[in-house]
């Protein structure tokens, strides 16, 4: 495989630190207690690696994540912006983004976010009885009050916030209460993640056949409410499936972002490199070894592509995509389940359906399509 056969880069995930200042019960990060930080030299090498790799052939998103990005000081991101400017002098190529728990936001962070036009995604699970049940400090205290303070600071600074809410079994009874929560806090750009089986999170409260129906009922009710607001809320779990339904079908041999080699590049805080699902960074398996395929300090893209480990991994993922194509009626819209979920749930990338597929792909697609059809009939 040659450099031109992989990418182009769509998403660069950089881990400034694996550390997270809170301790959510469903977290997939394996080293979130580690306080290691990415050195400036490593950051320089990471950008040098990316921009000299031949992967940058279109604009891409740089996501600071895989640990709480605001654990490192704002000056880290000023340094990063200065390095980035060498490669992207107009600022048109790279869109930076934080995925944060928002508990550490200060006016200084807001200034930095505005200065570098960084997009902000906040993780918040709804009212206190839902959020604080799962998203707690290491001493067991709920974090919602601090999150809302952070959101208020962002909104006061006129920074657009989109939120990601992780749905657990408990959440599925409360679509109306979640809507109330978003409206009360001025949040109008919503995404739902499902509690996934990933890394250290070995089980999900959403396992079990009855959860599929409960999930569908939840989403149907939430969309009924959110899409009829004036103005309607943006809900990723409607917009993405609707765009898939109305867009181009995915054909044989095509791969989508998470299963396409080097469409995503993940760089750990010590410079270790991986591709495919970001959740694989920092993890290993007895059969595959570490999912890190090299290091930005020592390994070029051609050397990674030539390595037996990458080739074995890519072959297994490609077989999994082909299995999805042959067996799943949603393939033309989905393009195959995320490799990370397949590995964590099925033990192999060469597999098909997962809990994540059943809920976040299939149910979302069916419910969104139903709403799309209803709105078309009403129109």
């Amino acid at each position, binding site marked *: 495989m040659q450099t031109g056969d992989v990418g182009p880069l769509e998403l660069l995930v950089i881990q400034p630190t694996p550390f997270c200042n809170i301790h959510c019960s469903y977290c997939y990060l394996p080293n979130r207690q580690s306080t290691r930080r990415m050195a400036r030299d490593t950051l320089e090498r990471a950008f040098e690696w990316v921009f000299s790799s031949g992967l940058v052939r279109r604009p891409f998103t740089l996501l600071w994540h895989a640990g709480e990005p605001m654990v490192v000081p704002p000056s880290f991101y000023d340094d990063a912006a200065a390095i980035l400017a060498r490669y992207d002098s107009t600022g048109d190529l790279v869109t930076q983004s934080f995925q944060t728990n928002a508990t550490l936001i200060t006016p200084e962070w807001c200034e930095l976010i505005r200065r570098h036009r960084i997009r902000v995604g906040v993780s918040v699970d709804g*009212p206190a*009885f839902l959020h604080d049940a799962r998203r707690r400090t290491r001493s067991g205290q709920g974090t919602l009050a601090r999150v809302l303070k952070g959101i208020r600071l962002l909104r006061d600074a006129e920074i657009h916030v989109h939120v990601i809410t992780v749905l657990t079994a408990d959440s599925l*009874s*409360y*679509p*109306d*209460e979640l*809507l*109330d929560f978003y*409206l*009360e806090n001025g949040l109008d750009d919503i995404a739902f993640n499902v509690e996934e089986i990933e890394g250290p999170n070995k089980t999900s409260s959403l396992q079990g056949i009855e959860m599929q129906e409960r999930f569908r*009922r939840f989403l149907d*009710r939430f969309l*009924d*409410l959110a899409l009829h607001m004036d103005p309607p809320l943006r809900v990723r779990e409607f917009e993405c499936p609707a765009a898939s339904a109305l867009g181009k079908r995915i054909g044989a041999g095509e791969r989508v972002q998470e299963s396409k080699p080097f469409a995503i590049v993940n760089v750990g805080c010590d410079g270790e490199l991986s591709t495919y699902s970001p959740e694989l960074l920092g993890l290993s398996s007895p059969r595959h070894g570490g999912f890190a395929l090299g290091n930005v300090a020592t390994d070029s893209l051609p050397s990674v592509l030539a390595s037996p480990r990458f080739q074995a991994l890519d072959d297994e993922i490609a077989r999994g995509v082909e299995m999805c194509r042959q067996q799943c009626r949603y393939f033309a819209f989905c393009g195959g389940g995320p490799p990370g979920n397949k590995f964590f749930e099925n033990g192999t990338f060469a597999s098909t359906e997962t809990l994540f597929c059943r809920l976040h792909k299939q149910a979302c697609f069916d419910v969104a399509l139903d709403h799309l059809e209803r709105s078309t009939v009403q129109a």
Partner: protein
Amino acid sequence: MTAYLPVVVAQGFHLPVSADRVLVADGAEWRTLAAEERTALSRPLTPAELELTILLFTLTARLRNACWALLELTSDGPNFDAISVEIGKFFSFKGLPLPDRAHVELVVQDASVPLSRTVLWGIVNLGEGSLTLETTGLRLALRPGEGCRLPRDVGVQIVGPPNEAANLLLLIHWPQA
């Protein structure tokens, strides 16, 4: 064997349960809940028990605000029929559907005058203070936005908040025969 009180928090609703949420008749006095009685407010019920039990719930802020907007006569808001339909959908999702042809009524109560009703399916406190709902042997505190579904033919007396002149109630009636 424990004799459970005929009141629980309805499944799919979240209400804080403090000791003074429910008062129990104790001779001529009223007592707060014991710890096990408080725990039992979250117990699951069989369908037969459900029919005989008061189910506590909370109406969402969105629906409460819609009722208030109606009173404030904002012309571009939904009418009461539309709000009633939305309320029905909400309870239906929660697995607590309103009876067919149930009648929903918005009532401004003189808080100093207790209101007695015997054929209510349920009641919601839309006001800004806590009201007291009294039935045989029990006094329930319903905070703003909270309500309850009543067993059929159980008579209740509704006492408005002590420091308010008037209170806004949503009464849900069984269909008339």
